[in-house]
Each structure stands twice: as C-alpha cells, then as structure tokens.
C-alpha cells in the first residue's frame, strides 16, 4: 500500500518541482529549450496511468476480467496523435490548453464517484499538475513567434469533446470515467511526442518567421484534415 502510494506521489512531487519555475509562480521561463524540455518532462509524467487511471480502476472495482477490456478510450474523445502532429505549433498549444481545460472539468465531475479521501487526494494532485502544465503552455505560446498577435485561446475542436453527456447510470458513468482517463493518458503521451518533435527540429522553427510559422501551421492543419495520410509521421507541418 505504501509502495503504491509512493508510486502515485513521487511523480506528483517531481511535477511540483518542475512547476516551481513556471508562470504559476508569477513569471515565465524565457528560454525556449528549457521550457520545451520542461513541458516534455511534464507530459511524460502525466501520461503515466499510475497517476489517475490505475487508482480509479481499483477504487471502482473495474479491475476484473471482462471489464478491463471496456476501459478503452472512445475514438474521438481526445485528439489523435496524427491530428496533433498535423497542427501548427500555435494551434497545437491552443488545442492542448482547451483539451486540458475540459479534462479539469471532467476530473471535478469524477470526484463525486470517489469516496475515499486518499483517492480524492490523488485526483486533486493530478488537477494541480494539469493547471501547472496549462501555465507552461501559455508561457510557451508567448515564446512562439508572433505571440504579440495572440489572443486568449478560444475553444477549438480538433477532435470531439472529452466530456460526453453525463449519465445517471452509475455503472455507465464509471465505465465512461475509466475510458476518459485512459484517453487522457494516451493524449498526454501524444503531446509528449509532439513536444519531442519540436525539440528535434529547433532550426526549422527558427527558419520561419513567427507569422509564417503560426499561419502556415494553421493552413497545414486544414490541409491535414483533408488528407492526413499524406503527412509523414514524426514531422511538424510547415
């Protein structure tokens, strides 16, 4: 039990340390590479199912054969990796921010199905991590070229909404919550990959003017919606 608690709390502590230099404390890192590395680490930690999904499955009694198979992300609940890779950097950040905002709402709704204080604490720590991550996203958006032209992120919908209609059926709600958390971790995994691709091609981002980068990304996103398969995986759209 203690080991399990350690598994859950340790990543959260690491995340907390990562957030110490984030805008949550009032200022942003002005070094692109450092902020990008921080986002990558945060995404890597937040993708771990031991933070949310595993405790949820255990507390709801879903760790049984025949049930675990149905605890899979619903297609379209979160933007796919291809969709994220197809976004320009600015749009990617905006999508990420919006999606995580919805995740926060959904996690708050999940709290009523979690009676144990210990599990509630785990959930609250995850919510704090997401808030910190969102702050870093805003900092990254400021570092991206053309940040002066940015406005407050508006909801965009590259996929479908991660918040399906709540149901009064406890069992169905339980399954949906499980699927949602599964999708959340998968989504953070994809986010981490995209950030890693950012790190692999820093020169490319410097070659393009801020304006170019922002809007080319947007156009490529529109293009990618039409023909996603034409885009090679692992490359940022130009």
């Amino acid at each position, binding site marked *: 039990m203690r080991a399990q608690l350690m598994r859950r709390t340790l990543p959260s502590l690491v995340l907390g340390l990562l957030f110490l230099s984030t805008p949550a404390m009032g200022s942003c890192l002005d070094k692109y590479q450092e902020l990008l590395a921080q986002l990558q680490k945060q995404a890597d930690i937040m993708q771990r199912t031991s933070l949310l999904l595993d405790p949820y499955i255990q*507390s*709801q*009694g*879903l760790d*049984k*054969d*025949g*049930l675990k*198979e*149905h605890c899979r992300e619903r297609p379209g609940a979160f933007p796919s990796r291809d969709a994220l890779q197809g976004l320009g950097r600015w749009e990617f950040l905006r999508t990420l921010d919006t999606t995580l905002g919805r995740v926060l709402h959904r996690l708050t709704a999940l709290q009523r*199905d*979690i*009676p*144990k204080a210990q599990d509630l604490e785990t959930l609250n720590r995850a919510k704090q991590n997401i808030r910190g991550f969102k702050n870093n996203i805003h900092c990254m958006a400021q570092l991206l070229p053309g940040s002066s032209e940015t406005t407050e992120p508006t909801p965009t919908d590259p996929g479908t909404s991660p918040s399906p209609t709540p149901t*009064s*059926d*406890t*069992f*169905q709600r*339980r*399954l949906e919550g499980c699927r949602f958390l599964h999708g959340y971790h998968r989504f953070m995994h994809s986010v981490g990959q995209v950030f890693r691709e950012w790190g692999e091609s820093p020169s490319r981002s410097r070659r393009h003017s801020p304006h170019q980068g922002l809007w080319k990304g947007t156009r490529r996103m529109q293009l990618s919606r039409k023909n996603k398969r034409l885009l090679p995986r692992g490359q940022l759209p130009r």
Partner: protein
Amino acid sequence: MRSAVDDAKTPEQSFWSNWSSWEEVHVQNSLGHDPFFVFPKDKLVEEGSNVTICYVSRSQPNNISCYLEGVRMQGEQLEPNVSVFNLNHVAFIRETGTNIYCKGDQGDSIKGIVLFVSKVLEEPKDFSCETQDLTTLNCTWDPRSDTGLLKQLSQSYTLFESFSGKKTLCKHKSWCSWEVAPESQEMYNFTLTAENYLRKRSVHLLFNLTHRVHPMAPFSVLFTDVSATNATMTWKVHTTGNYYTLLCQVELYGEGEVIQRNVSVEVDGKQLFGGLKPDTEYRAQVRCANANHFWKWSEWTRQNFTTAEAAPSEAPDVWRNVKSVQGHSVVTLFWKPLSKLQANGKILFYNIVIENLDRSSISKLLSIPAPANGTELNLDQCLYQIHVTANNSVGTSPASVIIVSGDPGNKEVEEERVKGMEDGFSLSWKPQPGNVTGYIVEWCDHPRGPLCDLQWKSVGPTTTSTVVSSDAFRPGVQYNFRIYGISTERVPYLLEKKTGYSQELAPSDNPQVVMSNLTSRSFTLSWKDYSIESQPSFIQGYHVYLKSKAGQCHSGSEKAVLSDDAVCCKYRIDNPKQKTFVVENLQPESFYEFLVTPYTSVGEGPHGAFTKVTTPDEYSPILIRIILPMVFCILLIMIICYLKSQWMKEKCYPDIPDPYKSSVLSLIKSKENPRLTIMSIKDCVPDSIEVLNKQEGTRKSLTETESSKATYLYLLPTEKSYSGPGPCICFENFTYNQAASDSASCGHVPVAPVAPLSQLGLLTSPENLLKALEKNYMNSLGEIPAGETNLNYVSQLASAMSGDKFILPTNPPEPALCSEYKMQMAIPLGLASPPSSGSSSLSSVTLLDEGEHYH
C-alpha cells in the same frame, strides 16, 4: 406504491397510505436502441439481503452472459428475452458498490449496474455523558462500523434530551457536546439515535449531572523544602463549584518504591513526604475526583524532583593483595564502589590513611579521586593499619580498616575441588576455633587473562559457607578460590583453597604426542608438554587408542569402537600426571595408528587424526649390531694397510729382493762354494740400454726429479734437436738379477740386445747414442735367444707379457709416445715422489755408478 410519514418525533408505528393501482408497461418499448438492459439500477441494500437481478434483451434468442464482480452468474430465463439472477446474502465488497454486468456474445456491448451493499447499521456502544466544569456535557460513544457508501452518506447521530425536549444533530461520529441548562437541571435523559438511509438505531442514558463530574487534571504541581529525606508537594485544582470537595491521589515513585497518599482538597493541595532517600530522583503525580460522588479520576499531572545529598552511610568494602618484592611489600588495595543507597550522593574521592603500627607516630594520607577502585602501596615489612573512607560533597563515610603486614599470610594449604552450579560455586569451610571477625572469599573473574580482575566476598564470622556467583564465570574455565579468615586484629590469614569449574567441558584438544624408542615390538609415547591445569575440565586420565590390521587387543587394553565404526584397542591411563606410555606386544613390520586423548568426567577429547607408525623388521637391529662392527673393523684394517702398505711391501715382498737376505744365498753358502758370491754392480759394465717408449702423461719413473733432467741433458742434448712436445726417450738401466743369472734363462723375457762393448764409447756422443739406441731398440723387439748374449747379465726389461705397465707401445705409428729409462732398483720410501701427470716429454735418465747399491 404507498407512502408514510418519516419524522423523528413520530413514533415507530407510523401509518402507511393505501397502495396505488398497478400500471402495466411493456418493457420492449422502454429499451430504446440498446440491445439489452440490466435492472435494477444503483440499488442500495443492506449486507445479507437477497437481491434479484434481471436483464431484458431486444433480440431472441439472446446469448448474454452476466457477471458479479467478474464471476459469471447462473440465472433463470423467465421469458425468451428476460432472465433473472437471484443473489442471496449479498456481501459488502467496497464503498463504491458491487459491479454486476452483462455482455453480449460479441462482447462489444456491455451493460451493468452497481449494487450498493451497505453494512448493517449497529447500535452505538458505550454511550456516556460527563462534565468537567458543570457547564458543558460531553457525550461519547463507539459508532461501530461506518455504513457510508458512494450512494449513501455515513450514518448520522442525533442527541435528544427528553426532560428539556431539546434535540441536536451531532457533528461528529463518536461524540457530541450538550450545553447544561442554566437553571441547574440535575437529571438528564438522553436518546442517541444513529440513522442511515436504510435503518435507525437508538440508545438511552439517564443520569444526575453531579454524579458525572470528571475533574480536570490538577496544575501548578511544585516541591518545596526539599532536603535529603523530606519534601513538600503542593498543587492546585480547577474549581467545579463552590460546594464541591475533591479527593486527590498523590503517588511518589523513587528507587522502585511507591508512596501513595489520598488528600481531600477544595482549592489547593499540599502533601509532606518524609523518609526519602538522599540524592534520589522521585517522580510524583497527582489526580483528583469528586469526593462526594466518585465518577472518574482526572488525568494525572506529573512532576519530578531530587532529594539533596547526604554523607555516605557505609564504609567501603576493602580488600588487599600483598606481594613481597625485594624485601618490600607491594600492597594493592581494592575497594568496591558504594551503592547508590550507601553513597547518598556522588562520591568524589577516597581517603586512605596508612598508619604504621610499629611506629605509631608515622601515618600517611592519600586521596584517590573517584571513580578509582584501588591503589598500590609500597610498604616495608612493618605492620600497617589502613583506613579507607569514601567522600562526597556533604561528608565522609565510616572508615574501613584493614591490617597489612609483610607476610601475605598465604600458608600452604591443600587445594580442594568444588563443583560449580548454574548460579555459581557453593563454598564451605571449617569454622575457626579462634575468634574471627569475618571471612573473605577471594577469586579472579578472569583467571586466564593478564589482569586477574580480583574479586572478593565478605561474610560474617558465623557464616561458614557461601555461594559465589559472577556474570564473568564461563564454562570450561577453572576458577581458584581462597578463603581467608579475618582475625580480631583485622589481620587476614589463608584458611582454605578451592578450585573448580562452573561447568566442565569435554577437552577440545588432544596432547601433542612424541613417539620414541620404536622397535619391532613396541614404541613409547610421551606428552610431557600437556598442561592439565589449563584444560576446560579436570583431567582424570588418558586413553590411548591403537589401531592395527590384526585387530587383536592384548592384556591391558580393551576393544573400542570409534564413532566412525573403526575398531581399535584402548589403553586407559588413570593417572593424569602420567604422560608417557609404552605400547607393547606389537608385530614387526606392521602398520599401526595411535591416538592419545584425555578423558574427564564430561567426556574425552576429540577423536581426531591418528598418528601412523610402522614397526621395523625384527632382525634388522641384530644385523646392524653385527655388521656395523665388522665393517668398522675391516675399514680399520684397510686403512692401516693402506697407511702401512709401503712398509709391508718393503717387508714382505720388496720389488728388488735383497740378495743378502735371499734364502738361495744361504743354500749356496751351505754347499761350500766360496767362489760363488754376489756380484757387485760396480764390477759390471752395462752392455745395453733399453729405450722404452711411454705415452705422455703416464706415471714417471720413481726416480724422476729435476736433477734427473740435468743428468739427461748431459747424455742427450735436446736443446737443439728437440722442440715442443713429442715422444720422449727414457733410459732404463739393467740391474743385475740374481735369479735371472742363476736360471740363465730369459727366454720368456724380452732380453735387450747386447751391444758390443766397443759401441759403448760411441754413446758418449749423442748422435751415436741415438743411433745405437734406435738400432738396438729395434732389435730388442724381437726374441733374442739367450745364447747370443756374451755376458751373463740378464736384462730386467719389462715386457708386455709380464704385465708391467711400462710397456712398449704396441702401436708404433701413434704419436706422442714417451720413452723412458726404466730404473730397476729399490728406492727408499722417503725418496719416492708421487707420479706427476704433467711429466715432461722427456723422462729422466739415471745412470747408476758402478758399485752403488740400494737396499
């Protein structure tokens, strides 16, 4: 459907309304698009209830499987598309409910319900109310198990007082506060009700408020007037009304003792404690209760204090060890530290007063700082009285007095053995007829260590036995005890000696055995270095084990079977001081193995490695005794012969027999032939010279000297004709041989060719000489008839047939041959020089003068 009023004020027997009329609904119409449904949704039941689960499917036939927490359920099909599952005595699994779900045969669709199983609500236990200040009642209870679920909150508790009609909803699960009415209501009748979604439970409590007073803990506990033996304790109590008296209980803990007092207190408490121990820390505590109606003691309030020091109450226990060193007494004084009860404070130093009883005016004072427990004194042979006192910050202890004299008092007494027990050694001694003031038993805690760690035990004059115990006693260690009597003059004298083991152990080592005197029939074993005093038990004797192939045991031994099933003979030596043993009755040329091990009352030594030995041959010693002297004698004779060989040769068989000593001469003389006489050499003229060719490096002529070379040079000028190594020429004179002349037969001897006398003069010239030599020598190789000689001289030329080593080489073409003149004459031993390997290429030539004769 029917309904009823649900209110706490309403009695249990509430009235229900009438049932509504039945409504029929077709289930298929309510399914919507889903393939099947599971009912009932989110039902809440108590643990142990019976629950029926059903599903309704749209299609027929259906292949739907239903599971309870992953375990498939067996149901009953009511209709083609309706099945039910009866669950009996459902159990609580988790607070989030029990998952029951059904899946179609494709496995892609899943429907389920959560059955919330609540624990059964139990009655609160140990419901009780009390007050500390008569203004607030604190009611507590044991809530038992929590029935909270995801769908149901934990049970709630309400407190209802029937006299006042007041009711309060408790905020906590296990306790609740109730404000006491200002009108001083004394009686209270409480009803505590626990309630959840499914059930209610109530308990009641009726009491008088003044009987439920639980005072608060006293405070301001202080100690005043603290001396070495007395202290005063004061404390205060919280007021619970003007007319209440409290009973306070005071406890004092110190040095394992408890002092308990009960004190009646209204406002302040006070208690005097006497008979305390000096320099002792005490722990005091006090608690109070209602003196009129006891309900509960308050919590303890604790405080510590320490009494003041006092002078040490006892004299230190002193003992001594006396050694005489070069006419002086080295006295080591030991004393035991005073116990805490005796010291009455921290001992700072020990005072030692040494008083010379022989010269009473002389005394000496030593101050030894604590925590020393001994000191060494160098005294003369006088009688001394030593006073030892312990001192702390307050005063001095009584003195311990001991008399020390130059005589250690260690008279020779016989040592007795004692048997140790688990708790030590039980020692007893004979009572002394004279007056003794006490006895002292002395021993060393570590007798094997460099520091003996002297210990002693003092007993009274009427005691003649004691048990000596020590944590230092170890099994297998021999401890020696000395029992002293203390005379009325306080002079100790040795009474008895005891020795023993707290626990005897079997010997762990065997002696190092040396074998000697090995014969064909016996050998001797000895283990002189084996110390019986340093063994882990008293050695009672030794066992000598002897293994042999024959396996027969002679008298004095018995057969024994070892742990490895080997059979051997065992000899027993009952005297531990006997450290030699002769093993007898052995067979010659036989292999034996032996082992010597000590035995004690607790067993014998280890049966380790046996020593191997093989007895020698029986006749070898005899043969050696005979042959060795014989060989010695022979060698002696040979040495003598060798040393005296020349003398013997000369005496017994000289090379040239002395004709004067010849028996033939006597025969001739006896035949009266005066003409016959011995020829003198000076009368002879040499007729020939034989040249012998001898290989270089062979033995030279006995007469070869440096001077011979000069002689040779005279005859043979080689300075010009000879250069470098090469064949040399030796000359040999021909001595008259009486035997040969007599026999007149030299046929078997190569006779040198006789040269004409005229040729002799030619020899003066070297060239002529060489020529003559060459010629005659070549002739000499042939057989010369004896009749061809003109003179009756017989050449003593050595021939190859005679076996002489100075032979002519039979292989003339070989180079590096040496010619030698062979002198046929006897030479005194003193003139003989050893043969030189490095002989010159030319041998010497010696020409004997006529008439010169050697005997």
